[in-house]
């Protein structure tokens, strides 16, 4: 029962080359371009560029919208993943494939699609406006919608994978103890697949943080309201490419710091199993 012991005997020294070599190559491939950006960054003018007011606004807005979009995705996406993994219904494999649509759709087209449905003249948007006076485009809420649309599939698909790999028998045991499906889900399924949910949430958050095309199309590019960091980077590229690199680095550093500090806590708390 003491499988956790194994980690103690691990270490890079015992990793076989056939695994270590591609792993290190992959790591270099993902991390090296960052080095390129660092080399190219205009270090001397960095401080003044960073303190420009709209940079902090954009950063704050990015972190806020990405977090809310992730929360929305968790709320809707984890049940959806559960539905796809645990409930068999006709057309399930089609639905599963449809869920990947926002992944494949070029984000700008995604933004157009959102406008067509949720815009002021859109199928649902019209009704939202007349019934509730809610108008999503060009608002911060619109940014959240655009980011959630693009990022949620990442959560859904990786959580579904985790659910499929989990041992069903624990859920059976919970059912015999009188747990309803909802209780089983909440108190057994979710804790058991916590590492998968954390991984999915990280993907979702990061994707939302880097979202550009759908956001600028659906929510526009208004400083302080809908201008997230990637949009600021886009505009900076138009006027001052060096500034764009600085902004990107800011985005990277902040997200890396947040992920490195938060995830270890989640992961160790979630995957006690």
């Amino acid at each position: 029962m003491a499988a956790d012991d194994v980690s103690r005997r691990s270490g890079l020294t015992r990793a076989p080359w056939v695994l270590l070599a591609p792993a290190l190559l992959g790591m270099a491939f993902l991390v090296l371009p960052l080095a390129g950006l660092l080399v190219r960054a205009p270090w001397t003018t960095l401080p003044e560029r960073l303190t420009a007011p709209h940079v902090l606004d954009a950063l704050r807005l990015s972190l806020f919208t990405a977090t809310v979009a992730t929360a929305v995705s968790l709320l809707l996406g984890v049940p959806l993943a559960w539905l796809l993994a645990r409930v068999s219904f006709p057309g399930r494999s089609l639905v599963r494939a449809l869920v990947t649509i926002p992944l494949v759709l070029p984000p700008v087209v995604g933004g157009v699609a959102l406008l067509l449905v949720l815009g002021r003249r859109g199928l649902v948007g019209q009704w939202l406006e007349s019934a509730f006076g809610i108008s999503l485009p060009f608002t911060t809420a619109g940014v959240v919608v655009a980011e959630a649309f693009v990022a949620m599939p990442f959560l859904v698909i990786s959580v579904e994978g985790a659910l499929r790999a989990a041992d069903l028998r624990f859920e059976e045991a919970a059912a015999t103890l009188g747990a309803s499906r909802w209780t089983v889900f909440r108190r057994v399924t979710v804790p058991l697949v916590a590492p998968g949910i954390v991984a999915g949430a990280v993907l979702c958050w990061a994707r939302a943080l880097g979202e550009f095309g759908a956001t600028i199309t659906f929510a526009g590019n208004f400083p302080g309201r809908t201008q997230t960091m990637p949009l600021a980077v886009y505009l900076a590229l138009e006027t001052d490419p060096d500034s764009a690199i600085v902004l990107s680095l800011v985005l990277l550093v902040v997200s890396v710091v947040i992920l490195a500090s938060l995830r270890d806590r989640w992961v160790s708390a979630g995957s006690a199993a």
Partner: protein
Amino acid sequence: MSLSARLSVVRPRFRLDVAFDVEPGQVLALLGPNGAGKTTALRALAGLTPLTNGQITLDGRSLDALPSERRPIGVVFQDYLLFPHLSALDNVAFGPRCHGVAKAEARRTAKVWLERVGLADHTAAKPRQLSGGQAQRVALARALAVEPRLLLLDEPLAALDAHTRLEIRSQLRRHLSDFGGATVLVTHDPLDAMVLADRLVVIEGGSVVQEGAPADVARRPRTEYVARLVGLNLYKGTATGRQVSVDGIDFHVNDEIDGPALIAFPPAAVALYRSRPDGSPRNLWQAHIEGIERHGDNIRVHLGGAIAVAADVTPAAVADLDLTPGQRIWASVKATETRAYPA
């Protein structure tokens, strides 16, 4: 009538077809060799495996249409299935919580149960920090904590050491008589079955081959599996009066009987001789030794020949007779120790 079950489950290479009733307060033991379908029957009762056919009635209510979580059951699984992310305490409190008990109250209940199974010191331990036997005791406490009307136990005592087993076994008995529900117990241990169960149902290959009170089953086994389980040699033969003929060997028995018959005797009733003993020729045959092994304080000798027989002799006898595998030998059984009954 408390539980009435007719279970039929069809699988590609296996078919389960059993029926049994359990009175309130009664304990029914399901015995059978590996792969007989005991776990399958238990899962069907728990609603985890759908019935291909049949019906389950508990306290007059049909359970067939109810999902597992609505059945008033408690299950101890063959491999525990403790929730790895919950402490022992929270594993036990899980059931009461699902039945609407408040958190603090559920934990109190759980603590009491853990104390009863002797794990007061391990309430905070996660399952992976428990030994195999500790884990199984937590599973037992978890199943009992929901105060089920039907308790289903799949080898509940298998991982317990002798000392704890004795304790848990009597606690289990005590608790069962308290709430008066029905219990179905799967076990391999004939002692567990004899001590805990009011009735035995023996399954082989998915069908019931024998059932009855433990003492009856132990006295009159109907299959080789049951005979071995209760420690008897068993043969099929043809009876005429007080004589049963098995594969050319005539056994003299005390019981008056005719037609197809079964004859059973304990290994300890077999006497071995290096040369043909004088006296009555009945119950005597020649055999060869196939294997010798220790068996408790005695030595068990496996004999081949016309019939396969196990004989228990004292170590002293082994030395006196200088028994070795392959050796030819004479064997006999006292008529008073054999029991014959209709097949």
